[in-house]
């Protein structure tokens, strides 16, 4: 196996832990709510998935646990920002800190537990495709979930009534309200689903690709997911590209070293961030969507 293949294999697997949360954050932001607590929801998801896997012996059931754990913290963010009109950025940070503390306390004993992580699954014929097969189709379950999510989210957001309502809520919630819908409920749902996906991303770390639980194991990747959405100017395909590129660059950092290629260390450490930024600036040249108009704006009198 050569370096480029390994870079892509590791990059897709690791990148999935950012792709899924960033698609969740996209959903939330299109409905008008920024969730800086994505990092916290990922952490909760990572621990939730690990704990459930330890309890049941099944990493697949663990993923469900991670999704629920992420969603619980999403509900808190939704309650604070939508129903208590809290500042979205502040509430997001509170959710992050809370998750950091809660998972730190509850997670202590799980560091010593050993699990069987999600197995690598080969997709029949597809995995036999020369070169690309082993890279794309010899991965764990959540990587495939990542593949399916992008078209699914594009379809829901742009081809269904629910998607239209969600995007309208992010632009003009008052109009949505006048039309007889409940923007608060739509936002709360979007935030919760977004956090659920963040939880699944956390699960990809703890019971998927890495296979261990550790305090603060998300190491800021949740914030990367939020940043990717911003730089991808709220376009799902670009979000996906940005998140995978980050994963691939992170993997390249290691592969370059094992091949004895010397690069300045500061540059190497900055590589994932730089490459993602540059790539997204380039793909956004054609102009993207503007930020949802009602993003980060508390609704005072609309219910």
């Amino acid at each position, binding site marked *: *196996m050569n*370096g480029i*293949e*390994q870079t892509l*294999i*590791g990059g897709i697997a*690791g990148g999935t*832990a950012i792709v899924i949360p960033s698609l969740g954050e996209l959903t939330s932001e299109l409905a008008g709510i920024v969730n800086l607590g994505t990092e916290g929801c990922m952490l909760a998801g990572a621990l939730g998935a690990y704990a459930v896997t330890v309890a049941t012996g099944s990493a697949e059931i663990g993923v469900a646990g991670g999704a629920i754990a992420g969603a619980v913290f999403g509900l808190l963010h939704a309650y*604070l920002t939508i129903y*208590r*009109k*809290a500042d979205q950025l*502040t509430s997001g940070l*509170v959710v992050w*800190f*809370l998750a*950091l*503390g*809660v998972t*730190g*306390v509850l997670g*202590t*004993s799980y*560091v*010593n537990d*050993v699990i069987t*992580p999600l197995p690598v699954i080969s997709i029949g014929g597809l995995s036999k495709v020369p070169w690309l097969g082993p890279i794309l189709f010899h991965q764990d379950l959540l990587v495939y979930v990542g593949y399916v999510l992008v078209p699914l989210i594009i379809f829901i957001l742009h081809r269904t009534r629910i998607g239209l309502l969600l995007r309208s809520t992010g632009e003009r919630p008052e109009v949505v309200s006048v039309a007889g819908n409940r923007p608060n409920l739509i936002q709360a749902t979007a935030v919760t689903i977004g956090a659920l996906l963040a939880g699944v991303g956390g699960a990809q*770390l703890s019971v998927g*690709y*890495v*296979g*261990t639980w*550790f*305090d*603060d*194991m998300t*190491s800021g*990747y949740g914030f990367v997911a939020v940043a990717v959405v911003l730089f991808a100017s709220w376009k799902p395909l670009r979000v996906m590209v940005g998140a995978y590129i980050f994963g691939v660059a*992170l*993997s390249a*950092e*290691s*592969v370059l*070293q*094992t*091949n*004895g290629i*010397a690069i*300045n*260390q*500061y540059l*190497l*450490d900055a590589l994932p961030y730089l490459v993602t930024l540059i790539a997204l600036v380039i793909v956004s040249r054609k102009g993207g969507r503007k930020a949802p108009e009602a993003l980060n704006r508390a609704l*005072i*009198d609309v219910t």
Partner: protein
Amino acid sequence: MLRKFTFLKRRLLKLFVTVGGVASLLVTLASCGTSTASASSSGGTTTVGFIMVGSRSDYGYNQAVYVASQTVAKEMNNIKVITADNIPENSSVTQTMQAMVNQGAKIIFATSYGYFPYALKFAKSHPTVTVLHQGGYLTGKFPANFGTYWGEAFEPVSLGGMAAGSVTKTNKLGFVYAFPIPQTIDNIDAFELGAQSVNPKAKTYVVNTSNWCDPLKQKEAAAALLAQGADVLSQHQDCQAAVIEAAKQAHAYVVGYHYDASSLDPSGWLTGSVWNWAPLYKSIISTILSGHFKGSKYNANFVGSFAAHNNPLVLAPFGKAVSPAMRSKILAEEAKLKAGASIFKGPIYCQNGQLLVPPGVTPTYAQINNFSCFVKGVVGTIPQG
């Protein structure tokens, strides 16, 4: 409308204070623990504080510190031990030290490499508190209430290298490390030299993560090494589970560091280097309590070694993959080190062929601590700052 808004704001503020309070309480709960050896209060009891950079249950560096601190609490009379973990290497550690002093601590062990400047400064401003720093090296005058301590970590690490060199089929060993600090460079060099001593063809491939514990980066590093063909992985990270898990999935072998993690992968575990800090902690605390700290060996850069029979880093139990013949060979080598031999006896060459240690010369600890190149046989470069 305005009134309603102000009312909302006030309620919000209240809510945030509550939520924030709960959050910080939980963080504090997560990071602070107290264990008391004797319940008696100030009557002759000395409070000792231990500060750790990571989680006390990391199956690595910090757990080794925590376990030893609990041994101190259990085995020493009239000692009250307080601990704080997950304290970052910034001014937080100064706050933590102050908080411990406010709780009556007279002795503080600051156990992470990056605590050094804060610990030294704190010692200077608090003459009545004795501050010990784990892993630091002070060139210059020591305050009367400050000391650093460490062990010749590279000795047991070289023995782990022997085990690795003996089982590898690909002659490629992988080493995941955090930062190119002197201790780590020494460890990588010793690991490779140990491996070479039993397998001249063995090469050590290195990857750095620029982080003491980032499981995703560790996994990527391990995956890259395994893809390169490495069939034994070792590491110098604070938390070691991610690398061990990666090796386990690939049916590769593991040489551990910091803490005996053989239970994570019993079949792949070869051996490792594990900290046994309790005897040293106890000796330091006794010296301070007896009033003889000033001017003692602990009021300096103390470095335990095999030769002096006080190395805090010891060889971990062997896994079943290490053959009986190899075990006795490694133990024989350990005995030689205890009798004064050194893994760094010259001639030793850098990667670029430059002579690092001249033939026949055994470098001092200070010299070894100044090594700035990987030895021949290591693949990878030292990151330039």
